[in-house]
């Protein structure tokens, strides 16, 4: 095995060994090398020191109200999209269908043939109007009858 300390690329092998990321065969080969290489052994010891110190550095636990603050921040952004929340995810797939139905109904209303409006002849007819109509009919009848009778009278023969 080539000494890892002597090449830049192979030094990562030593770091991977300390991190426990080497395959067992490679780790075993490196351990055999370490038995006879002071430089690599020193590198590994120093790297272990760094690794152990890093292991002991534990951050504080996350604040208990972390989620509450996050959801509050999300809610503050929501009013601009109130309609989305109102409709909700369940309604989303139905929306295109509802829009299509609305269009069809609108089309039917606009383009359907106008039905004849029934007129009730009894509505709005005043007695005077009926009387006048009857007078007019009487007058017309007299006009139609009068010449015939006149002919008879003017030509008695």
């Amino acid at each position, binding site marked *: 095995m080539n000494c890892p300390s002597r090449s830049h690329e192979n030094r990562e092998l030593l770091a991977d060994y300390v991190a426990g990321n080497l395959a067992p065969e490679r780790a075993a080969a490196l351990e055999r090398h370490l038995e006879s290489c002071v430089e690599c052994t020193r*590198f590994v010891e120093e790297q272990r020191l760094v690794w152990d110190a890093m292991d002991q550095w534990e951050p504080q636990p996350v604040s208990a109200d972390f989620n509450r603050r996050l959801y509050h921040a999300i809610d503050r952004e929501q009013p601009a999209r109130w309609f989305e929340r109102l409709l909700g995810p369940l309604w989303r797939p139905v929306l295109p269908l509802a829009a299509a139905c609305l269009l069809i109904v609108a089309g039917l209303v606009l383009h359907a043939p106008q039905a004849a409006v029934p007129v009730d002849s009894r509505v709005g007819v005043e007695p005077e109007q009926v009387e006048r109509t009857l007078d007019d009919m009487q007058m017309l009848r007299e006009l139609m009858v009068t010449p015939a009778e006149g002919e008879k009278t003017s030509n008695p023969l």
Partner: protein
Amino acid sequence: MEHGVKQFMVASAALDYDAELMLRVKDGDGASFDALLAKYRTPIVHFLYRMLQDQAVSEELAQEVFLRVYRSRETYEATAKFTTWLFRIATHLALNSLRDDKNERGQERLDENTEDAPAREVADRTPTVEERMVRQVKVQEIRRAIAALPGKQRVAVLMHKYEEMEYSQIARVLSCSESAVKSLLFRAYETLRLQLAHLS
């Protein structure tokens, strides 16, 4: 070829359960967002805390990370691992914050307060006073050493050590090549080894 790579990434992402959850969030499923939050809240806050070494700022930025995840739900595409996307957002915010003046406050707190981390208790034995002091000194030294690393080296080390990410995933988070990640890690660990050598 590019199309093939993209298809492969989509297929890989299909196996990523977190990406599936995110796709459900996209469809309006709030419970899936709750599940992602429950799973990644602590790793994200801890990652940001180790980056910035300020609890209040790290929680504030973690809130922003999840808020951005929620805001992006409608445009989310499962083209990469969910954690890659999530840590990319967190890294972006952390690096921006490091450039910001707020970071100075973190450095001051680092000097003032070295005992904010809860003590790790070993189940079968109580550490002696001397052991606790040695541990305290080690933690203080590592915090100083990590805080002194350049931003990208810090990101690479924290993801490698604490998130146990592979080189390829760190590369995707940092938008660089795997060899660049190895180089970042090599330089970062070398600095840390030199800084902590006196403790051995």
